[in-house]
């Protein structure tokens, strides 16, 4: 956020946002079945490289978007937290697959019911697994967010989750 936005500085911010959105260095934190659809999206048929996001950096320190792909169990949650902490700002998180959004149909002792209980999430892509077209749609929404992040500021405060969720 800027204190006194002027025409030139907002144009500059949008230009920087444009450059950032077309050069996404993703860290694919792949655990489960969604990884297969992630591979399908990244490869030739539904190429994600044409969005500039085709180069996965396999180190969190060199990445700016964390794709959390596949179910996160409670044993894996501290690892995910540590990976998120190791990334440098500005960073975004994409919850890929319904297991990362809300836990999917694994409502049991082992699964984290949605990674937004642990780390803040920018884009949710539901689906079990989501079709590659949905993934690309989510990626484009993420790109809109990246475009405007210097002007609009970082993500808004997530709404507080209830302590116990009654069905």
């Amino acid at each position, binding site marked *: 956020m800027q204190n006194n936005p002027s025409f030139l500085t907002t144009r500059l911010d949008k230009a920087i946002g444009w450059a950032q959105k077309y050069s996404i260095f993703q860290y694919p934190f792949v655990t489960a079945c969604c990884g297969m659809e992630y591979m399908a999206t990244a490869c030739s048929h539904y190429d994600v490289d044409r969005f500039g996001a085709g180069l996965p950096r396999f180190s969190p320190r060199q990445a700016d978007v964390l794709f959390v792909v596949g179910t996160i169990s*409670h044993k894996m949650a501290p690892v995910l937290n540590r990976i998120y902490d190791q990334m440098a700002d500005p960073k975004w998180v994409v919850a890929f697959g319904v297991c990362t959004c809300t836990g999917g149909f694994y409502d049991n*002792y*082992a699964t*984290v019911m949605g990674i937004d209980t*642990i780390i803040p999430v920018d884009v949710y892509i539901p689906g079990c697994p989501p079709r590659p077209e949905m993934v690309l749609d989510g990626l484009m929404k993420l790109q809109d967010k990246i475009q405007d992040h210097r002007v609009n500021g970082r993500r808004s405060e997530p709404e507080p*989750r209830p302590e116990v969720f009654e069905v």
Partner: protein
Amino acid sequence: MTSVLIESVTDRFPDAVSASHAYRGDQTVVVRPEFLLEIARFLKEDPALQMNLLVDVTAVDYSAFGKGPAPAFFASSGVAVKPSSQIQDEDPWPGPPEKIRFTVVYHFYSIQHKHRLRLVIPVEETEAALDSLTTLWAAADWLEREVWDMYGIRFNGHPNLKRILMYEEFEGYPLRKDYPVNKRQPLIGPVN
């Protein structure tokens, strides 16, 4: 209907075998826990049996057997499907062990002779412990660790009996029938 495998085990260890059946063609022997290691060694080394592949080690908790939620009105008219004429059902299933909570189930296979055998060992709840088969088959290592992790049944002589699928801080044994399905014990984050 007896068969070669069940007969050879029963002849060799008459006081160890408490029951046997071949429900749906799966030959099964129910054995007392003290005799496990001897019988396993016999199964592996006897040239007529040669059960060299330990296919699976698992356990079943029979404490809630038949005590599911009460069936709905008219549900009793949906009687269980009878077997088709292709599978002879002369050998009915004897049912779960009387008054014993757990059974540990071993499946063996012989690659040379192409036959299978299931060994069922009833295990008491209070001293849930059995001999480990890691000296005979290396596969028993991780399989027994999983039974320990999920059910809390110890294996005497196991080199490394610790949790394998859950984390060490987890308390309780998840696959037991008294562990509620969505009781989460998170390491970080809220209990949701």
